[in-house]
């Protein structure tokens, strides 16, 4: 516990960029308010220190006053936050606070729900993905997703990973190459390379989830959305996924919904805490560097939640 504040984790990652957040001990009061300010008002140039971090990790996804409705029921109320490029952003909060709903807006999976309606803006590299003329197919290729339960297709291991690349019409040799690379990226290659034609359903839960990750990586996305990706996995498999997240961070922007606060603390750079308001609509309570959220949250509701005094 003690040796695992997020910033120390970052230093262990072989990412080319330097860790953005200062360590536990180095955080002085003068630095204190900056990540929040950058995160919530990224269009304004931050102070000197913040500016370099902002340049290194510009906002990849920007939610602006997002409201979400299922029919008449409002599930999200005025949520605004920036997801920074090549950083891991965790969404935490009690069940029903709308974090999964919010996550699924980023690749418009809510389109599948009849009666779902969103207002506000979600900018992806500056383009509003909620606009009626936005190309949803293209969006979903660029914003991949990993689900709560491993959901490999009932096909072979190879077919699972090759599905996306084939759909994009890539050549056979390129598909082969991408399958191998994706399986290597997820640490599966050594485990499965001699049984690629076997059914994916014979893999263990942890392997299945890494296969799903490989399948998502195969179409070369820019963002990965993860909806409680370790909820169905044992601790070892969970740590493997977390390890992969750190390894892949320099190539992808990641957003993870998790019920496991320790997981959020371990893997993420930024943490958003959400809560249901009186009308049962999810609201963003606090969004800050993970270091600040878990060491010195500003909102007492955040503190109550992360210290387990809530719900």
């Amino acid at each position, binding site marked *: *516990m003690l040796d695992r504040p997020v910033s120390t984790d970052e230093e262990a990652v072989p990412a080319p960029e330097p860790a953005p957040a200062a360590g536990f001990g180095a955080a*002085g*009061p003068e630095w204190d308010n900056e990540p929040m300010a950058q995160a919530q008002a990224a269009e304004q140039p931050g102070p000197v220190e913040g500016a370099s971090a902002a340049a290194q990790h510009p906002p990849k996804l920007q939610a602006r006053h997002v409201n979400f409705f299922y029919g008449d029921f409002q599930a999200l109320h005025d949520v605004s936050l920036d997801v920074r490029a090549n950083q891991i952003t965790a969404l935490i909060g009690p069940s029903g606070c709308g974090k999964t709903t919010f996550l699924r807006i980023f690749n418009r999976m809510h389109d599948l729900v009849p009666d779902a309606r969103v207002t506000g803006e979600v900018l992806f590299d500056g383009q509003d993905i909620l606009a009626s003329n936005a190309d949803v197919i293209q969006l979903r290729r660029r914003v991949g997703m990993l689900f709560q339960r491993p959901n490999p297709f009932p096909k072979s291991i190879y077919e699972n990973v090759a599905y996306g690349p084939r759909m994009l019409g890539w050549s056979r040799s390129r598909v082969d190459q991408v399958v191998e690379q994706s399986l290597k990226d997820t640490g599966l290659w050594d485990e499965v390379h001699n049984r690629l034609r076997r059914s994916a359903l014979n893999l263990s839960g942890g392997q299945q989830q890494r296969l799903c990750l490989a399948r998502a990586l195969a179409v070369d996305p820019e963002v990965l959305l993860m909806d409680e990706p370790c909820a169905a996995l044992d601790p070892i498999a969970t740590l493997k996924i977390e390890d992969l997240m750190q390894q892949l961070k320099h190539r992808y922007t990641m957003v993870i919904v998790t019920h496991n606060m320790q997981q959020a603390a371990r893997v993420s750079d930024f943490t958003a805490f959400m809560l249901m308001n009186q009308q049962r609509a999810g609201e963003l309570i606090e969004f800050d560097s993970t270091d600040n959220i878990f*060491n*010195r949250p500003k909102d007492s509701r955040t*503190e109550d939640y992360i*210290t*387990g*005094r*809530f719900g």
Partner: protein
Amino acid sequence: MATTRTHFDQELEQLKSGVFRMGSMVEQAIGHSMEALVQRDNALARAVIRGDEELNELHRELRERSFMIMATQQPVARDLRLIFSFQHMVIELERMGDHAVNIARGAIRLNDLPQLKPYIDLPRMAALVQSQVHDVLGAVIDADQDRARKIAERDDEVDTLYRSLWDELVEYMVNDPGNVQRAAILLFIAKDLERIADRVTNIAEDVVFLHTGHIVELS
């Protein structure tokens, strides 16, 4: 906030009350050691030395307790800070107890010798340090970081007194080599008091950290 972690909260309460108890023991030890010096009371001095074992035992127990809580409860935020700062306080209090023992030992040695001079500045310094110890423990109990900051500011007075005592005692030594042994012992006692005051500042810093999450330097 409503507690959904009753057991955890109980463990934290036990830790807290242990630290408070240790604080009052240390405060008493410092008072008794100075009294043993001024009153030339060897029995009291020996009582302080014996009492240190109990302090050491409590120190060990409280540190084990905090490790156990960290290992089993995965505290974060204010809980983590509480355990961290209390753990550090426990270490400082244990050292303060050692300083009291040093003073008591010095008192026993001085009590065999004729008094060098009337004790004026030393008891003044001791009184100041004692009030600091008392106040900072109050700030810990009341969780009052503003008071903690103010207490830390009083360290300057102690330093001033320490410097003037130093000059005075050095003068004694220079004037008469026969004074050297006694003056040196008194010098060490003054040094112990000065160190106790430094540790008071450290504890005040812990109080601030506990409430803000920021590690500050209060001096």
